């Protein structure tokens, strides 16, 4: 059964001067999912996070939260969300406890929540040290602590594993899974595909501001179902295949289609008229290849 759609983005566009950071992006984030926002650097992941967090104000399109346009309920939306955007930044001349106190005062959090979240991310012993003396991993954990300080239902974590060593990544993933178990919907942006396979239930892939893939991990990782078709006429092929109920479109690019189907490669090629030249039809064994 498909989860309810908690957040829906409709035709979101953001331009920075002449460059398009987000180009007509539409997708939905299911409730109680760990949603992976994937893409190489510069694909628009952080821009999207900044739009959702209210840091970027000038953009086009619509975003709905619980079927309400966030433009009309932004305060309520932000109350339900916790954000860790890019690398963690804090007031370095203050301690972790003081930093969280500042944020608790403006997030309607009780002072007891500070000790609890510091304990959740294993920073209790260092709570009164200046953040300037923290290692990168500690700052990243403090970043998670500030995001969950007001006990939000939804967490947006932008590259939470960035700059962490393998042990730190393992700990961070454990923390994320732990938060998901507590019933939180988590949106993680990353370009590290191993994280995605380990954590996410649904993913979208952005490339140069465009949405190129939107699927559940279940579909993607089922080796027998995912087929990649490369052709100069990918758009035409898309038309023929989507007419057939046996194929579900995962991603469509200028020269590449990714579909989910129970049919084999031979049957798929039968569905495509012979006049359309195909460069290749292959089954993709893993996410890394799909990502390329």
């Amino acid at each position, binding site marked *: 059964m498909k989860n309810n759609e908690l957040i829906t983005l409709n035709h979101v566009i953001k331009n920075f001067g002449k460059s398009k950071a987000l180009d007509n992006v539409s997708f939905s984030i299911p409730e109680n999912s760990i949603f992976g926002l994937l893409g190489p650097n510069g694909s628009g992941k952080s821009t999207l996070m900044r739009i959702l967090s209210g840091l970027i104000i*000038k953009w086009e399109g619509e975003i709905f939260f619980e079927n309400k346009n966030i433009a009309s309920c932004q305060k309520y939306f932000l109350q339900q969300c916790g954000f860790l955007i890019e*690398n963690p930044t804090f007031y370095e001349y203050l301690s972790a406890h003081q930093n969280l106190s500042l944020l608790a005062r403006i997030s309607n959090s009780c002072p007891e929540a500070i000790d609890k979240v510091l304990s959740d991310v294993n920073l209790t012993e260092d709570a009164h040290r200046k953040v300037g003396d923290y290692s990168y991993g500690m700052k990243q954990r403090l970043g998670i602590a500030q995001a969950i300080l007001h006990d939000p239902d939804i967490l947006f974590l932008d590259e939470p594993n960035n700059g962490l060593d393998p042990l730190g990544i393992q700990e961070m993933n454990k923390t994320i899974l732990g938060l998901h178990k507590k019933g939180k919907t988590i949106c993680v942006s990353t370009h590290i595909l191993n994280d995605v396979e380990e954590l996410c239930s649904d993913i979208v892939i952005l490339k140069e501001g465009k949405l190129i893939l939107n699927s559940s991990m279940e579909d993607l990782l089922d080796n027998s179902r995912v087929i990649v078709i490369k052709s100069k006429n990918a758009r035409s092929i898309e038309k023929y295949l989507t007419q057939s109920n046996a194929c579900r479109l995962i991603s469509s690019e200028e020269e590449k289609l990714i579909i989910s189907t129970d049919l084999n490669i031979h049957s798929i090629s039968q569905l495509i008229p012979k006049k359309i030249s195909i460069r290749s039809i292959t089954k993709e064994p893993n996410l890394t290849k799909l990502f390329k």
Partner: protein
Amino acid sequence: MIKFLIYNEFQKIINRKRTYIGFILIGILIPFIVGAIDNGGNMLEKTIYGQLSDSFFFVGSLINGYLATYIIIAVLITHMPFLSTIVAADIVSGEYSKGTFRLYLSRPISRSKILLSKLIIVYGYTIILMGFFISYSLLISVIWLGTGELAVFHMGLLFLAEDDALIRFFIAFLTSTVVMLTVSSLCFFISTISKNSVTPIIITISTVFVGTAISIIPIEFFERINPYLFTGYINSYLSAFHDPIPFDAILRLIIVCFIWTVIFLGLAFNHFIKKDITD
């Protein structure tokens, strides 16, 4: 909510070393100046009253704590914009450059309230700094040199009654603070559009410098525009030592500074509320 925001801003500035630079400098400099006035008192008296000594016969010393404070204000008032902009320059731009707005602005609070809390702290700092500057000067000077009539130049030599001195210094504090608040407002505005904390200081001080030059250079055009520039009022504290005190001139100062302050704050709020935080 606004009281929490103000408390947060207060906590941020009291934990920063740069907040204390102005107070430390004033704290060190003023005893030096008072000591120098005490040491060089005779020479100073001769310089001030040199030409008058042919016509008048002075009994006792004219150097006292009030005169020393008057001299200190005259010497240092043009440098106060440097000190009063220390906090204003960094309070918004510092958050852009360090990326801490990512933490702060993704919370469910309006940006105008956040900016207002910062503005209140900037104004509080400016008022306290100016208050410290004048009251500390008075305290050190009076302890060191005692009190007496205040002799100043205004359309000739003017002796102001000892009993009036404190109220005149208070009016001098008010007038100079009004101008300094406008300077801080300019710096605050530049801070909202700049991504580093040096630019607001440079632009503000350059503006004060150019404005002061306009008020000094005797060119008709400059003389015509000078009354409408807040920079022309930096030395307006002097009017507190005229007899009678020209309250109409002080009112004009307040109106001009208020208009400039509204312009700077309007631009600051308008820019900050619409700004995309991309750093």
